[in-house]
């Protein structure tokens, strides 16, 4: 079984990879033998994932060469050719899967990406599901699976297309020991069935590496060791110890075997009795009992999602228990009891301090919240003791994981708590740092008498606890000292003891290799179009299942349409006005009656002085003040010249101008009435006849309602589209696009199709609202309108795609798209200011913006009653935007991760 008998499947030579200034890989060279299982071991952040990403082509090469299956992976042609032979399961349970799809739908999606026909798909999926024991859960949503099941589904999706090279990045992180053992059995069965399969695995659990054919041990972007597990182990106790020795260059670890003896007070500090917590119909914690004594280190073991964190949250008062009781120091846990919070130090799962504050600032903030009297001295002592002195002014987010954990612990103990509750404090941390961390914990328990309640999934850590409790699916399965537990199961290690206990609780599923290789391979499906449709189908299902996005897509446009149309109506009537009538004559009263009698103005109590009028204008109580001079009546009777003074509230320019127009009109009509009454028929010179075209009654709704879809149908579809692409980038499922034969155009167009349908349905909804709710008749030909609308939403969704290719997270995508679609539409498309009134540059931008054409089209058909002939140019223009924007988006989309 030496490396020479196997030609290398992968050759890595001189590969260096940097993220900004930080080197993730430094000049790596190695060969991966074909047909073997090669393991990359080392803690988080040493470059394992980067290397696997480069090998699968998910990441773009920076320096060096990698040959995979007989060609350079940096060569796009070779990459496309071998893509169907590679399967990649990225780090993070189910990270490349789709939470809103069921198990079967996930598998179908991957099968379609590889062009499998319906029959072949069915056979393969059935084989994989039955082999992994997932068949009973085929219709369960992926997001609702347990960690072990997600891991199996991930493997199924990777195996659906019979790869020659299987790359698994940390497949077992966070999975319980039994599921882990089953997983390795499954891999072994698959390999036995298919000896040509090359498997690459990375793991942070050193103990798993014992069964690998070939090991690459990495640290800080370099290869420490390459060879068989036995060669690595040498004379060390186990692989973990061997790795630690490599890491410290042979310096023996001082604390490796130290088990300090502690005096444990038989005085229960933490007590749980029948503790139960339900979320809906799901029981996360099921009548759990335990009691922890003063100064004891109590370990909590179990897989992700078994209820460890929930139990800890109940104890800290973060979550109320559904039933049962939790007591600390003999008192029931109460979230509002501030004194009790002062006795607890809590470290939540993962790093949860403020990454944007420095180490010192984080400590300062917590010292202040706990109002520690000897703040400066305490912080100095802690930085010293926890080895943080060198990092005091570093941002917490820039710290290595091991040091972050020490900072978290320092923060958790800053107020000298009597209880420490630590939720998986060491996951992902390298063995050396974990060791140092445990030394600190043991000191705290021994020297300061702190009671420590800690959860972990490392067996080596569980062995250092005074007592451990093993939790599975919400229940405590066993509890006792590590030695007692091993003895009770007559096992050789804590791990086998737990597996034995687990197997009793839940009968194991068989580990069989799926019979995938004996299948007749049908002719490949319709290739590119098939893949695009696979994306379209998946996207549609996802949107239909996400209620918020769905509501936004349909209710959003309807609500905004209502608000805009009711809110922006420009027909102003019933304005309040006040009069300062100094004349008090029949003529002045007639003049006032002329104004008050119109539908535009409502009278308010008369004014006492000009100052009073000004005050009421200022307060916004009236919009118009009319002042009639003392001799108004007399002069008018005598036919002498006199003057009426109207003061208009001009603060809002539009309203001011409208009011001026109303007053001038009413004045004219008073003059006419007056002249008629006096029998002196006023001489008319010429008539000026305004004719409002398209909208005779000149109601603003008839103009407003058909104009609004132009803005709504760019903003909402573009935002939804951009969010959908950014979401894949943020959640990680975009990896599927990187490592499958999908081209950029297939990916984009596939995702776009459902949104074009949604947006077009939106258009129909808005058009229906225009006719039914706002009573604006459709005067023109609906066919060109529908065609134009379809082209318009194609253009606007493409615009969303384009912006999404430039943003990396959903929030940035939402706001950037909103700003970049609303601003030009309002400014340049003629929505508020007609295109013909724009000047030079603005008019050019308007001509290059799709909304200008759709606005003209929609208003043209609804209000102007235009047909094909007049609208042809608009439709032609709209037809250009979609293809051009999609093409630009495809060119600017990265086909690999940077």
């Amino acid at each position, binding site marked *: 079984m030496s490396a020479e008998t196997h030609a290398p499947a992968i050759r890595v030579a001189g590969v260096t990879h940097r993220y900004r200034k930080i080197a993730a890989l430094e000049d790596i060279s190695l060969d991966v033998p074909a047909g073997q299982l090669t393991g990359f071991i080392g803690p988080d952040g040493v470059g394992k994932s980067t290397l696997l990403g480069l090998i699968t082509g998910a990441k773009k090469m920076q320096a060096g060469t990698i040959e995979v299956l007989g060609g350079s992976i940096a060569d796009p042609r070779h990459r496309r050719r071998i893509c169907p032979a590679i399967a990649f399961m990225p780090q993070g349970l189910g990270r490349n899967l789709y939470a809103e799809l069921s198990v079967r739908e996930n598998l179908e999606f991957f099968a379609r990406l590889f062009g499998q026909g319906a029959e072949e798909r069915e056979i393969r999926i059935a084989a994989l599901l039955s082999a992994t024991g997932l068949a009973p859960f085929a219709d369960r949503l992926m997001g609702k699976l347990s960690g072990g099941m997600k891991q199996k589904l991930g493997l199924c999706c990777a195996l659906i297309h019979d790869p020659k090279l299987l790359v698994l990045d940390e497949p077992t992180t966070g999975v319980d020991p039994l599921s882990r053992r089953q997983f390795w059995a499954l891999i072994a069965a698959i390999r036995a069935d298919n000896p040509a399969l090359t498997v690459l695995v990375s793991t942070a659990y050193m103990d798993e590496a014992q069964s690998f054919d070939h090991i690459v041990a990495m640290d800080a972007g370099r290869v420490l060791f390459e060879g068989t597990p036995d060669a690595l182990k040498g004379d060390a106790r186990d692989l973990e110890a061997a790795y630690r020795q490599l890491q410290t260059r042979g310096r023996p670890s001082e604390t490796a075997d130290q088990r300090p003896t502690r005096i444990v007070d038989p005085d229960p500090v933490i007590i749980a009795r029948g503790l139960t917590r339900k979320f809906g119909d799901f029981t996360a914690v099921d009548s759990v009992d335990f009691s922890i004594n003063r100064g004891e280190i109590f370990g909590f073991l179990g897989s992700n999602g078994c209820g460890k964190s929930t139990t800890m949250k109940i104890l800290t008062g*973060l979550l109320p228990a559904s039933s049962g009781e939790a007591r600390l120091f003999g008192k029931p846990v109460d*979230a509002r009891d*501030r004194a009790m*919070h002062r006795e607890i130090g*809590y470290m939540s799962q993962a790093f*949860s301090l403020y990454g*944007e504050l420095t180490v010192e*600032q984080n400590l300062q*903030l917590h010292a*202040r*919240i706990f109002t520690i009297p000897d703040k400066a001295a305490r912080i100095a002592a802690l930085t010293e003791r926890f080895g943080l002195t060198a990092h005091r002014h570093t941002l917490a987010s820039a710290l290595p994981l091991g040091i972050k954990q020490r900072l978290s612990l320092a923060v958790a103990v800053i107020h000298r708590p009597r209880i420490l*509750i630590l939720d998986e404090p060491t996951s992902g941390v390298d063995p050396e740092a974990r060791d140092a961390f445990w030394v600190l914990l043991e000191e705290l328990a021994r020297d300061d008498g702190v009671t420590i309640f800690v959860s972990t999934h490392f067996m080596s850590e569980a062995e250092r606890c005074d007592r451990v409790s093993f939790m599975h699916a919400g229940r405590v399965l066993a509890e006792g000292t590590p030695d007692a537990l091993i003895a009770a199961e007559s096992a050789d290690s804590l791990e086998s003891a737990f597996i034995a206990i687990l197997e009793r609780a839940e009968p194991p599923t068989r580990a069989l290799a799926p019979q995938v290789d004996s299948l007749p391979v049908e002719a490949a499906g319709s290739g590119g179009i098939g893949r695009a449709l696979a994306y379209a189908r998946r996207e549609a299902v996802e949107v239909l299942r996400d209620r*918020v996005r769905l509501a936004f897509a349909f209710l959003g446009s309807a609500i905004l349409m209502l*608000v805009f149309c*009711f*809110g*922006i*109506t*420009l*027909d*102003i009537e*019933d304005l309040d006005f006040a009069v300062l009538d100094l004349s008090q004559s029949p003529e002045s009263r007639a003049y006032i009656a002329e104004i008050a009698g119109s539908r535009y103005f409502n009278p308010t109590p008369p004014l006492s002085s000009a100052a009073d009028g000004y005050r009421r204008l*200022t*307060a916004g109580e009236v919009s118009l003040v009319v002042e009639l001079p003392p001799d108004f009546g007399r*002069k008018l009777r005598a*036919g002498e*010249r*006199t*003057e009426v003074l109207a*003061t*208009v*509230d*001009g*603060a*809002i*320019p539009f*309203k*001011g*101008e409208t009011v001026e*127009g109303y007053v001038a*009109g009413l004045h004219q009509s008073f003059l006419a009435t*007056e002249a008629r009454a006096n029998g002196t028929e006023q*001489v008319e*010179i010429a008539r000026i*006849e305004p004719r*409002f*075209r*398209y909208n*005779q009654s*000149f109601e603003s709704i008839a*103009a407003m309602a058909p104009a609004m879809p132009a803005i709504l149908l760019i903003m909402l579809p573009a*935002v939804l589209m951009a969010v959908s692409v950014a979401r894949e980038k943020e959640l990680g499922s975009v990896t599927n696009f990187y490592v499958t034969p999908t081209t950029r155009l297939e990916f984009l167009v596939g995702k776009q199709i459902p949104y074009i349908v949604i947006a077009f349905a939106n258009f129909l909804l808005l058009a229906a609202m225009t006719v039914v709710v706002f009573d604006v008749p459709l005067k023109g030909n609906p066919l060109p309108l529908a065609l134009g609308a379809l082209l318009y939403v194609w253009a606007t969704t493409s615009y969303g795609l384009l912006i999404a290719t430039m943003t990396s*997270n*959903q*929030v940035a995508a*939402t706001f950037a798209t909103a700003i970049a679609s609303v601003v030009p539409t*309002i400014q340049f498309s003629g929505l*508020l*200011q007609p295109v013909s009134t724009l000047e030079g540059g603005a008019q050019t931008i308007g001509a290059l913006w799709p909304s200008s054409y759709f606005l003209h089209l929609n208003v043209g058909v609804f209000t102007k009653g*235009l047909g094909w002939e007049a609208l042809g140019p608009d439709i032609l223009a709209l037809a250009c935007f979609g293809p051009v924007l999609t093409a630009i988006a495809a060119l600017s989309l990265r086909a690999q991760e940077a």
Partner: protein
Amino acid sequence: MQRLSSIFWLGLKEMISLRRDWVMMALLVWSFTLAPVMEATGVATSVNNASIAFADEDNSPLSRALAASFFPPEFQPVVQIAPGSGPAHMDAGRFLFVVAVPPGFERDVRAGRVPEIQVLIDATAMEQAGIGANYITSILSAEIQRFAIGTDLVEEPPLVLTIRSGFNPNRDTVRFAGIVALIGQIMWLTTILTGAAMIREREHGTIEHLLAMPLAPFDIAAAKIWANAAVVLVAAGLSLVFVMQGWLGVTIAGSTGLFLFGTALFLFTATAMGVFLATIARSMAQFALLVMLIILPMLMLSGGETPVEGQPAWLQTATLLLPSRHYMSASQAISFKGAGLDVVWPEFLWMTGLGAVLLITSLLLFRRSVAK
């Protein structure tokens, strides 16, 4: 006392975090500089640069005088078009207004036969059509009147109407739109900053970390509210002085201090809104979508974009419950009309009341959402 100190220090932490979040900082800078400037200078709400054509079949001195009476900036230079081609030009969207002068117009005027001029108006141009029609009618009447008086056809009417425009005599739309845009940005940004800070805390898991300490949900929300309100208040103040007054040349008729005091009152409502939306949304993306759906209508209906009097009566009553409407109305009174506290106190009272209700509701909701 100790709670106050915790709230204070948590708030300072909030500001440090914000300074290092470049997306939010970029949004902050954009919102208080370029965004209001573009909004203020981009859209004219009165007649501006309107396109007008004449179909002159008379071609007399009078009809030529009529065509010569339209000037920029209100109107573009008049274009002469063929008689009868007006409707086609309008269908293509080339002109907003077409004036048709019939043959023999001047002759008929002199003969007292009362000829008719037709003004075609594109009624789909919402803001410009109505006002523009008034403008054109009065410009044409005045010109014909002058001609008639000059040729002794009529006497001047005895009753003259003098219209004076209070507060903004030059119809300066930039000044108006600038302040409205600034107010809009204050509202957007406060809600987004506060809500995003809240969700970031939840997504990073730090909220549980805080709640395990001697802090109540109220303390956490209060810290975010004061910190983000302070940031926006300072940014709005700077924008008012440097962007509005310095760049756009906007003048504030009343007291800048009173304006900022009103802003501070309003900020409590807007931050409470942010906390409220953050408790509803499950993720940052949902929050972003919700903000667009809720804040946009609140702004549109506040009376800034279009007068409140234009809304149907039932809607006018309903929008009384929008804090944004009271803020808009108070700020307009202060900045355009120079109103003092004696005038705007009812609006301030409304804002305080509504802000308090919203704040208490969102704090209660927030309490419940963390308990889940």
